[in-house]
């Protein structure tokens, strides 16, 4: 086991209620996955915030580069037709 300052960083995702998706809550250090889950329970769910926890080692997350923002995201700015707002939802469908 390595020293605490060499422990990997983990990202913590918590599902607050059944039916909701897991949401990023924060990060923490832990020597391995089991301890990361336990630490996440103690650090992020002690005020009964959760019903389920995911942890993933931060180094396993592939992130988009900040300077790729324009290339990735601005092309969709002027394509309003991609929003599904151009047709009527029948009343029987109810809330979508």
């Amino acid at each position, binding site marked *: 086991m390595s020293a605490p300052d060499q422990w990997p960083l983990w990202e913590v995702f918590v599902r607050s209620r059944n039916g909701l998706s897991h949401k990023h809550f924060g990060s*923490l250090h832990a020597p391995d996955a089991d301890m990361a889950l336990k630490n996440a329970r103690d650090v992020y769910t002690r005020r009964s915030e959760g019903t389920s926890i995911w942890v993933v080692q931060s180094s396993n997350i592939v992130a988009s580069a900040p300077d790729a923002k324009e290339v990735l995201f601005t092309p969709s700015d002027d394509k309003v037709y991609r929003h599904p707002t151009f047709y009527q939802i029948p009343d029987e469908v109810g809330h979508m």
Partner: protein
Amino acid sequence: MKWDTCDPSEQYLLHLGDDALVLGHRLSEWCGHGPILEEDIALSNLALDLVGLARQYYQLAAKRIGAGTTEDQLAYWRGERDFKNHVLVEQPNGDFADTMARQFLFDAFHLLQLEAIEQSNDAELAAIARKALKETTYHAQHSAEWIVRMGDGTDESHRRISSALLRIWPFTGEFFLPAEVDRLAAARGLGPDVQSLREPWLELVREVIAKAQLSLPVMPQKLLRGKSGIHSESLGFLLAEMQSLPRAYPDAQW
């Protein structure tokens, strides 16, 4: 004020509450001093769980003792001899390995004790045990995980947890040495015959110790009588600190 009660159920509640309060206080001493932030929070959580459990036992004891007795009086106005906790739980924190060794050996006992009390014929007591079992199961997992990581970790962590286990081991015999309070509780079906918990406890402990590449300490047990109010020198200092505020300011309000 004299708090000695001769009612077995009240005595038993005080014994159980004292274990939880004294160990909870010990763990609270780690607050702000944990080896890492995450573990600091975990230790404070354990402390809060145990202090919360102590409150439930004391509230029930206070209700049964009657005459206006309160949980705070039971926590802050009883002297060292009135405390009926195991001598193990009052032992100083030492380093993180010492604290985890103490916690691991107690958690395994505490689990078995609560499982037995869940079957108590005292319904109010059984309800407290049922609720406490969930958090105690977590405590036991948490401390066992650390025993494994320290035992099966680096040379230094292995050395530290080995010597911590050797230091605390002689205090575990008291768990299974029936005192008056245990005998009365068992006779009335309030709690277990503590001797019957020894084998299942050894089994729980042995499994984790083996997984941690450690060996079970082989050494004589101390003959301790904390459950009869005879404590080590550590308890007096602990109580002096824990009780100082209400004793200096008896009218203090939260």
